[in-house]
């Protein structure tokens, strides 16, 4: 408890911690929202590939002495688009392509780091993330990018959803599938690029996929899944920041540990997993669908049920109301 109070006091006092909190919340929001669609479109490894190419971009930026964000964006967008192109043209299996790109960019990153004359601590902070050293300018840039991604995501949400459900059907229904796929890939790479500082290249991907995977365990509704995913993402980012500050641990790993714990709990208590394989019931007489535990309330179906039990002499039933199909099982 005192740890919490200490954390809140520090929050009021230190600007760097406030910036860290804001970026944690925003990382939590954009990563977990983008993650919902990555998960549903089954592009899980794509994110991993992009994150590694982003790291190579960072290394190049540091080597050349220019702003790493530029080279990060360049590398990640390039790799995302090339993966998308290969997948679209079905040149090779996308998993193979991602595997190749993934290792190649890692090799590039190591090459660039090896070429550096002075070993930069920035490399470590980009690889593992350090949310506590985000500067004011960096934060503003980060907020602008995040706002753009959020806006775009909500604009194309329904089309993205259609594409995750059935991409071919979406295409013949007039959804510009090709354009939206590339747009989405660019959005994923920008999200990864801007989140790199906070979480790090190795772990950023966990922040994208894990909140969405946890939310998926709880609901059958897309909007609820998005809200839950954001909630899990933001909660674990803030809680991870708290752990990172209080116990002086790397922020990336505390955030990812928190979100993984949420996933494990969600998986264990998932109502989807626990639900038996119920199918929809129908009334044996009129064939109308019934909700769970519901009985058909139509007079003719009730009458048919009563007739079935051979007590029809007690009530009069107009024969024309009876369904054509009579019950087959007798219960006397």
């Amino acid at each position, binding site marked *: 408890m005192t740890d919490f109070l200490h954390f809140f006091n520090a929050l009021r006092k230190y600007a760097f911690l406030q910036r860290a909190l804001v970026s944690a919340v925003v990382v939590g929001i954009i990563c977990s929202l983008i993650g919902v669609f990555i998960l549903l479109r089954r592009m899980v490894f794509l994110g991993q590939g992009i994150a590694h190419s982003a790291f190579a971009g960072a290394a190049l930026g540091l080597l050349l002495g220019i702003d790493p964000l530029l080279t990060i964006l360049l590398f990640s967008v390039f790799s995302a688009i090339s993966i998308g192109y290969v997948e679209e043209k079905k040149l090779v299996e996308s998993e193979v392509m991602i595997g190749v790109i993934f290792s190649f960019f890692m090799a590039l990153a190591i090459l660039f780091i090896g070429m550096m004359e002075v070993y930069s601590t920035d490399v470590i902070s980009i690889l593992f993330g350090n949310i506590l050293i985000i500067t004011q300018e960096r934060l503003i840039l980060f907020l602008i990018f995040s706002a753009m991604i959020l806006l775009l995501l909500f604009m194309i949400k329904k089309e993205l959803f259609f594409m995750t459900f059935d991409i071919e059907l979406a295409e*013949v229904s007039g959804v510009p599938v090709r354009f939206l796929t590339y747009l989405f890939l660019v959005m994923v790479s920008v999200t990864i690029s801007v989140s790199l500082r906070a979480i790090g290249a190795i772990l950023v991907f966990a922040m994208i996929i894990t909140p969405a995977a946890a939310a998926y365990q709880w609901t059958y509704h897309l909007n609820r899944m998005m809200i839950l995913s954001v909630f899990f993402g933001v909660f674990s980012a803030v809680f991870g920041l708290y752990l990172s500050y209080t116990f002086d641990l790397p922020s990336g790993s505390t955030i990812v540990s928190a979100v993984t714990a949420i996933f494990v709990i969600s998986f264990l208590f998932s109502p989807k997993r626990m639900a038996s394989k119920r199918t929809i019931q129908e009334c044996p007489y009129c064939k109308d669908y019934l909700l769970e535990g519901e009985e058909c309330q139509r007079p003719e179906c009730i009458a048919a049920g009563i007739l079935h039990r051979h007590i029809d002499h007690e009530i009069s039933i107009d024969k024309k109301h009876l369904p054509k199909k009579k019950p087959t099982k007798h219960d006397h």
Partner: protein
Amino acid sequence: MTITKQKVKETIYQPLEKGEPVICLQDVAVAYQANVAIFDINLDVYPGECLGIVGPNASGKTTLLKTILGALKPIQGSVQIFGDKFSPKTSHMIRSKISYIPQLQAIDRNFPALVEDVVAMGRYSKAGLFRPLNSEDWEKIYEALEAVGMKKLAKRPIGHLSGGQQQKVMIARALANEPEILLLDEPTTALDFKMVRSVVDLVKKLHEERELTIVIVSHDIKLLREYCTRIAAMDKKIVWKGDPHDPDLDIIIEEIFLR
């Protein structure tokens, strides 16, 4: 002289004269890379008719439907829908009048979509890109659910429904678009006998009540004979067209299926 937007619209949206075909394929050939899937396709579909297309597996039936939908470009010949060819200007108008019901595929049991969400997808092309659905759209969505008798299950997850129920939802999705033409690709595959009846009766009812033009692709000739007003038999090209009860059809069917 400048051409106003309205004028362009008028020239595109010219109404068809009576008796003109709504779908007109002339000398169409479609290929996947070097493999020709269908060729020599000459087919007219008239308003209000229910055309059945029968053929064995890999005879190009689905390819034909996708060509009509504009998803595949012919390497030869012309495809006209409502008298228009597919172009960036006309494709939106054409697609808002055609609904396609694909062959039923297994839907992930846990997929986060309710029945109403799936039907809502049918309204997306009407609503347009970047715009959310409004209350009128939702009215149409529920009307479509009502028409297929699935309103009660609107809030159920789509993965929890049986195959036949899912097929009905897909039909509702197609109806939500308020189409004039309905294209069905093997609507009864993987359904049990009772469900086949139920789905096909529903399609027949829609055809009669809404005067929809329907094209059904199937390998089940019995079913097509019972419900269609005309049948085309195909095996990469259209080998026969005519009345469903024509005795010639039996010979043709035997030929293309046993080849």
